């Protein structure tokens, strides 16, 4: 069975039908890219899955449970983590703190433990820090060492994207939703990140849904590609079949001129 199975998902904002009955599924341990022209409903798709907006109708079955109308924190706790298109870090927290916050839903010490400094609390704090450092080590030395204590806002754009992925990884998800992870990166950084996304699947066993505009990235990482346009799925399949699909070409480039 698919890890995430979405049936007839709809969401309208006023008169705009952002999602018009999308069916979607992703198997455990695979990477699926969601592509489509601007305004196709890709980010809305992520927002509804991650619970930021409740869907109007439809089912979001994650591991068999329907997650529609759950609180975002509950959805994250069940194992779906995400990043944002317009990088949304906690800019004044340090790099390490940003990732440590991600461990919140996997830890439990409350006020009493904190005040009384119980052994369990101190060990948990230590574990949170170790886990955070471990996650950051996924990006090599880029976010390690002296970077730990820097506030997130001093980071370069590419590092902010990396940090956001690290924060999502720290929630120990099974499914990771990456919203344009390579946007704003230079070609070299893009290549590097593409490889890391592959590693997320191969080494960490994560299931990944990627929204991406860079077709080289899509080609390289995807096990399957889903194309959205006007809130409707217009094509899916492997990269080859999708990239030659007439509907997809039309959605991106418009209808070809009749004459000529």
């Amino acid at each position: 069975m698919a890890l995430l199975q979405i049936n007839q998902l709809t969401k309208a904002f006023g008169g705009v039908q952002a999602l018009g009955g999308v069916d979607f599924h992703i198997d455990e341990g695979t990477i699926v890219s969601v592509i489509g022209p601007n305004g196709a409903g890709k980010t809305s798709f992520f927002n509804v899955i991650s619970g930021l907006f409740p869907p109007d109708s439809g089912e979001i079955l994650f591991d068999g449970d329907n997650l529609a109308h759950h609180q975002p924190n509950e959805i994250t706790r069940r194992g779906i983590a995400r990043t944002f298109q317009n990088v949304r870090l906690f800019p004044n927290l340090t790099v390490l703190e940003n990732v440590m916050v991600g461990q919140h839903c996997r830890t439990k010490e409350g006020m009493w433990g904190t005040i009384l400094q119980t052994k369990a609390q101190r060990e948990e704090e230590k574990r949170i820090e170790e886990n955070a450092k471990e996650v950051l080590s996924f990006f090599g030395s880029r976010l390690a060492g002296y970077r730990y204590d820097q506030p997130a806002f001093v980071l370069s754009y590419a590092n902010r994207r990396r940090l956001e992925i690290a924060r999502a990884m720290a929630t120990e998800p099974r499914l990771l939703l990456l919203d344009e992870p390579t946007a704003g990166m230079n070609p070299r950084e893009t290549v590097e990140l593409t490889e890391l996304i592959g590693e997320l699947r191969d080494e960490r066993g994560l299931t990944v849904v990627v929204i991406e505009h860079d077709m080289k990235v899509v080609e390289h990482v995807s096990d399957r590609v889903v194309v959205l346009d006007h809130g409707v799925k217009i094509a899916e399949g492997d990269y080859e079949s999708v990239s030659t699909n007439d509907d997809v070409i039309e959605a991106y480039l418009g209808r070809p001129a009749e004459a000529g």
Partner: protein
Amino acid sequence: MIDLKRVRTFGLIAGGTLSFVAAIGMVESFNERTLINPGITMGLLLILGIAAVFGYIVAAGKPNPLVETARDSRSGGIAGGLTGAIAGVVTSLFVLFVDTFDVSEFFPNMREPLVEAMTFELGVPVGLLVLTAVVTATAAAGGAFHGMSDSFRAGMSRALGWVVAFALFELVVSEILDFADPLVDLIYAPRGGLQPWAAVIIGALAWWLSTRYKGRGEAFTERVKDSEAGSRLRRSVILFGVAAVIILPMIVGGVVNELLITSGLFILMGLGLNIVVGLAGLLDLGYVAFFAVGAYGTAILTSPSSPAFAPGLSWWIALPIVMVLAAIAGLFVGTPVIRMRGDYLAIVTLGFGEIVRILLLSDWLTPIFGGAQGITRIPGIPVPGAGTISGTDPQLFIYFTFMFVLLAAYISYRAQNSRIGRSWAAMREDEDVAEAIGISTVQAKLLAFVTGAVIASFAGALFSAKVGTVFTNSFDVLVSIIILVVVIVGGMGSIRGVVVGALVLIGILGGPKSPGLLAEFSEFKLLIYGALLVYMMLKRPEGLLPSVRRSRELHGEDLTQDAWLDKGGDFTGDSAEEEATT
């Protein structure tokens, strides 16, 4: 080069300020306090201070980080002097106006005593000339001061600062030096004020010490900051602090202890509100409600004359019950407002605060809370072997205040650097994202409200035991506002900041109902609070002793820009670094 436009602008502002402080009666009432025995009063200090500050500002020029300001004492002095002359003339015209026309019907302070105070009792034509001359000279001195060498400036400001401090805080100094009575008599004149030669000696000593031990203080603070937790240096500093806190109440007298207790209660409430506003970012304008729950809860549970229900419990048994009540109140206020943000939250909590006060005062609940009569005969805190300690014994009561302040500071400190504190910080920065990465913002908000409420209930319980009676007018909205001002002025999110903010605002200037160390200020304290708040918002929004995170937030943009420039642009810097590491 003298910027004449700036001179004119600031001259007029200075003249306006001087006229304003005269018009509200500040100079007159400050004149009742002698600082240095013959003649130098606090009112005179006010006039001189305003003149000197404006002279300095004009000489300093427009702040421009790109250009090193020229430091030239001659042109600075001239600019300051011109500013002072304009200010003096404006003020003189104002005094002349008051002298000629009688407007005391509308402005009760604008009468003969004002003219006398502003003309140094020399009468109108002569006194005004003297006033103008004095203001001009002081402003010129202030302007020239800007151009002096750094060591002169440091020495001079230390010397003046210490003399003024000794003069202003005569009460504290003489109480601390109580054991050496003859010394006190040497320093201070019998009817108040420093002896002139004592002022000279203190000033000279301060100057000498500042040059002799230049930079040592800063170096020492740095060393303490860098030292590891648990190191010997840090331990001895902490030990010294604890010893000072234990010994201080013994050597100062009742009045100062009383002030310290009041400040302590506000530190407590400030720390509680700091959790809600500073850490969790929830603007609560009705915080006094939790203070009221603590105070009234203790009153009902301990007082034998509580109207409806008087179990007459011991304070120590009442305390945990009151804490639970406050926690429930925190949940009660927190739950309905959980989905509100920013301004809406502020308005609703403001309403809640007033609802609590009005309910306590209402006829409907008078049988329980005593209405306008309040609840009286609240016993103090029973201590085995020492009887019952209440506000009549400030020297002992203050230790209870210290104890709870320490407890609240400890709770804040631990919470701040833990999983909970991080979730609050995340929520404050971006609520949606915090929710999306798995933080239950509902839980985090309620936890902040409840923790804040419980800390306020400590303050309420102490307040009841100290004063012995509770009335609703101790819990009006002004208290909420002042606690918030304490937190903002001290530095949001900063424990040290709250302590300093409360000591300065409540201890020195005075709380909402009680005068501070400078009793002369009490009439004007709201004005000063307001002025201070405006100044802080403009110049130092992160507070006196800011928390690291908060100052990042408020100056973050500049820093980002700098960091970006330092790296020579975004991506290049990043890949250059990669080259270095691979």
